[in-house]
């Protein structure tokens, strides 16, 4: 199969509004609100109508959903896990650099 597919790299050069984020991640606006309040997502803009999310937010939402579903953690727990995972990744990268 040598078909070419339309692809998009979900990096921080791409931003999305709250509705696009909801459609892509199949979550309600309520969930996005909660994630913003919990500090998991940090959008640009001051109100939900003007919020712009980096495309990196998609992965954060997906991981949060999977952690909630598979490990039965609540939202603050998932937020903590995400922060710790980020920190772990940074430490691992530093370790690789010095070893």
């Amino acid at each position, binding site marked *: 199969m040598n*078909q070419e597919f*339309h692809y998009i790299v*979900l990096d921080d050069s791409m931003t999305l509004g709250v509705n696009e984020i909801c459609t892509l991640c199949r979550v309600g606006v309520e969930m996005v609100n909660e994630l913003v309040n919990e500090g998991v997502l940090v959008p640009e803009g001051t109100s939900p109508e003007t919020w712009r999310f980096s495309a990196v937010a*998609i992965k954060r939402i*997906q991981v949060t959903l999977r952690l909630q579903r*598979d490990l039965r953690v609540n939202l603050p727990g998932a937020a903590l896990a995400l922060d710790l*995972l980020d920190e772990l990744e940074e430490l691992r990268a530093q370790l690789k*650099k010095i070893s």
Partner: protein
Amino acid sequence: MDYKDYYKTLNISRDASPEEVKRAYRKMARKYHPDVNKDVDAEKKFKEISEAYEVLKDVEKRKAYDTFGSDWRADQEFKPPPNWKSRYHKTSAGPGGASTEHFSDFFESLFGGGRSPFGAEDLSSFGREHHGRGDDLHAKVSITLEDSYHGAKRTITLNRTTDDGRGHLTIQPQSLQVTIPKGVIEGQQIRLEGQGNVGYGRGAHGNLFLEIVFEPHPLFTVSKRDVFLVLPVTPWEAALGSAVAVPTLGGKVDLKLPANSQTGRKLRLKNRGLSSKTQAGHQYVTLAVYTPPAETVEQRQLYEKMAKLMPYNPRSEFGG
């Protein structure tokens, strides 16, 4: 087909209580969850423990499973007994329910329901009234640093539901060739629109999300877009400031060392990292001065001459 020892998978005894089963599963699930554990085998392990738990948490399924387990020997090829009724084959999950999509053939031969959460006919009647976007698929794609540096094509194989054109849905392995765009970095996702599972009814296809994982490289390490290399140099190259051929992901480039460089000095090769269309990555070269061993009399004399000519105390900071 191989027999699966679910008790061994969860590391519990055959007479473990339901609480022990749950505890063992939860502990292992936290440890091996693929979002938490970056090991390449974590995902496989997580599926195995999920499958084991799916059976052992359910009184009926566990009883049925134990019935085989007592007769089974390690050297036996596993086959369900001929009188095995498919009464367990109705444990299907609808859309949104727990997916058994990734469970083993062993599981499916006992409990069914795996590959197709509902029979093809059920699905089409379901589809007549409901239209919904197909499920999204997630996969990891492992690439080399060179793939990211230059951009590449990769063929991946994944199980997804497709429509055979006559309204029958099946799950089957399919290969697709995907473009690895230049400058993707580890952990980033690529979204392939409409390459997920087929939709319900007239619903659109789901999306495919590919997460980038880097294969370890023999020379370079990376941090985000930056590439790091430790460059061994001789004392005279470091002192005199020679031009040294340095490997980069795009081939060798000449790097002029500043004279009197020391071990640990960091030099930057601009834009030699994992640059995308919008963001630049650089290569950082850390010098490591390697001392040639003094093996012959002549070589030792040369070092002695250096000691006289260039009195130097690298430990002056220590005082004394």
